[in-house]
């Protein structure tokens, strides 16, 4: 079937089977390599994308339900000013190790900050609950998001 949606602010149209996962379409057909598969069952958040501004696990989204939606991946988000703030926050806080979880955490941070531009550490912890990281132990990611919120004051 043909699905039309907006990916990173550009219209795309893909010919796919309706049972395909958004994750596969993004990775295989649209070359969005920042979207990672960590578990394939909605547990790790490595495949996070923003769907109409909401954080979703793209491994759980059937492509049919994406018709007409806005999808944002890190490939699009990384061109924004907000991303710059998160990038700087993550850099100074040592939030990245193996990096496999990182795109997911960047988008989780965006989702969190756009909902709540001034979260406490606890709120950040809650906000990233759906994203697993096996390398950092999370504190340095939380610090990165708190740092980003300062750097990017006024952007969210």
């Amino acid at each position, binding site marked *: 079937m043909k699905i039309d949606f907006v990916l990173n602010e550009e219209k795309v149209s893909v010919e796919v089977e309706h049972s395909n996962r958004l994750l596969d379409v993004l990775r295989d057909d649209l070359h969005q390599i920042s979207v990672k598969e960590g*578990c394939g069952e909605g547990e790790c958040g490595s495949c996070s994308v923003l769907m109409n501004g909401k954080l979703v696990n793209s491994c759980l989204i059937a492509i049919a339900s994406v018709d007409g939606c806005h999808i944002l991946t890190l490939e699009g988000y*990384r061109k924004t000013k907000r991303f710059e703030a998160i990038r700087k926050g993550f850099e100074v806080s040592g939030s990245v190790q193996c990096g496999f979880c990182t795109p997911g955490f960047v988008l989780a941070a965006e989702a969190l900050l756009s909902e709540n531009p001034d979260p406490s550490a606890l709120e950040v912890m809650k906000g990233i609950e759906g994203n*697993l990281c096996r390398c950092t132990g999370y504190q340095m990611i939380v610090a990165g998001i708190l740092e980003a919120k300062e750097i990017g004051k006024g952007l969210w």
Partner: protein
Amino acid sequence: MSKISESIKRYDFEDKIQGKAIYTPDFHPEGMIFAKTFRSKVSRAKILSLQLPPLPKGYFIVDHHDIPAKNIVPVVFEDQPVFAVDEVNYIGEPILLVVGPEKRVILEIMNNISIEYQIIQPILSIEEAETCSAPFIFNNKPYFVDYEYHKGNFDDSVRRAKRVISDEFKTGYQEQAYLETQSMVATYDGHTVCVQGSMQCPYYIVEALKVALGWNESRIRVIQMPTGGAFGGKEEFPSIPGVHAALAAIKSKRPVKLVYDRQEDIQCSSKRHPSIISIKSYLDENDEIIARDIDVKLDGGAYAGLSSVVLQRSIFAAAGCYNIENLFVRGTAYATNNVVSGAFRGFGGPQAFYAIEMHMENIAKQLKKDPIELRRKYFVKQGDTSSTQGTFHDPIVLDLIANEVIAMSDFKSKRLRFESEKLKGIGCSIFYHGCGFTGAGEAELIKPSVRIKKEKSEIEIFISSTEIGQGVLTTMRKIVSSTLEIPIDHVHHNYPDSRDCPDSGPTVASRTVLIVGRLLQDCAIEMKKRWNEESFEIIQSYVYPSHLRWDNQIFKGNAYPDYSWGANVVEVEINADTYEIDVKGIWAVYDIGIPIDDKIVKGQIEGGIVQGLGYAMMEVLESKKGKLSQDTFTTYIIPSSLDIPPIYSKLVKNPSTIGPFGARGLGEIPLVGVAPALACAVQQAIGTNITKIPITPEDIMKGVQL
């Protein structure tokens, strides 16, 4: 603070934060097709027959017939086949690959393979292996290896003893749970096969390809791709998917991608060894510990893998940080029809330190002594001999480490207070991690070498050490540029490619900074002397330090080239309704020498502690009839951001005498001591001894009711 410790921006940061880093699953060479592994569904059987469906055009089966040389995965022993031939020994053992352009068709083919087994009685636990009446799995004995070593005069001390305190502990499996599953891409150009993938040890894969293909090294190339976590799980295991992908590429003459799905990865890749450890301490009339008897049993799974070396580390570590003059230590790595156990951060250490630290706690309890002060009495010091009778040549600052952790955590007053406050507890652990390969392994087995090249003002590092998130692409540049006293941006370093990187050894055993970093420093010192020359290169190989010695037959001498040390305190409160453990704080103090980069070090510490926390109280992983019951991230629970207590860590300054800039190994030690400190805390909180990890609410419920 040393200049070198000041953090800089990681060299792998930009690619990763922008999502541009190409991990193996993201890599699509022109013409690439896919492979999937068809695996045993039974834990032990003869394969009577195997029927394949007709294959559509462009699809291939790859099995043991396609191996030109030896059907062996070389690790320590040569018992494990690349593909099963006529028998299988664990659930998930690879039998063949289905290879072709479409994943959907591959799955269809897999579903239509029929296989007839004749079941053999499996051996499914350490206990079953010990008393096994079924046919043996390995060489007519129930185990892969059994070891023992002695110190002092054990028998005499036992006779002299007035009191014996004994304990037995069990530890469970742990899954590395790197976020990127095992992934390989192989290409073949008619002459050379190239394997690119997620790995810790490129030269282990080179060796595995040499053995399976029988080819000369010039026809084999292995390149590490950005790797989404490893933790030991990408040490020896990737040789299997690496060789599989290569065989498929050679047969199909197309690039082949082999990426495991999560469930497959958990079921089939190596795990931390489950253990049963018993310790008996013999005390004299003054309640002095005069001798110790230690017995370590590991479940090695179906093939020997690294079990022998894990067991060695385990039996050396089981003596703890204590100078007990008389020791009798045994260890056995049993062969069972479970998934193959293997490398995991700590490598036998976490099991051993859990046991010895709980045992020290229990002795303190019985003698009504302060748990840290009892430990302190026996701390090893510079000039003492280790459990294997090697002299500790360097200063050991355990006293300082203990003092710091007590002060930071307010251990003593909390410990006292919680005696009368229900369901609250605080516990401690003291531990070390030997850095580098066991004994003289660095010189005799690994023989690492490194290469650096100068081209005008640009320097390039060539080593086989991999970037697995621990920061090697940054720390090695720092070591070289600081030695040369040049701006770091003139130093270049890439992911390893066996074509131009010599074998610097595997990226394991907390050895990279200590051993490889030191070799690079030596090269750079030499290079600095010749700085006026425009272009040249220096290759440096490891030389065993002359003040160390090791006899691998009787395990006597310096078990490791260097040691890192640490102490943890964990405070808990048990939820009275759910029996869940609420961790209030973790305090950690380490001597890792001089940190090469403060931020990277902090990241290793916090990540390791959280993995240790998972090991201690969350990550339940059980084999039921040879099948792991928790094989998804829904059932195998690793810590999420909501499980993280406040973590306070601190380093004491005690430079290594052999590491570059005084640095020692760091990667593993943060995981090692968490479980015992946490279990000691739970023990105080509920007043009943904890004898196993992970500690579940069910365990606590049983304990509390008593």
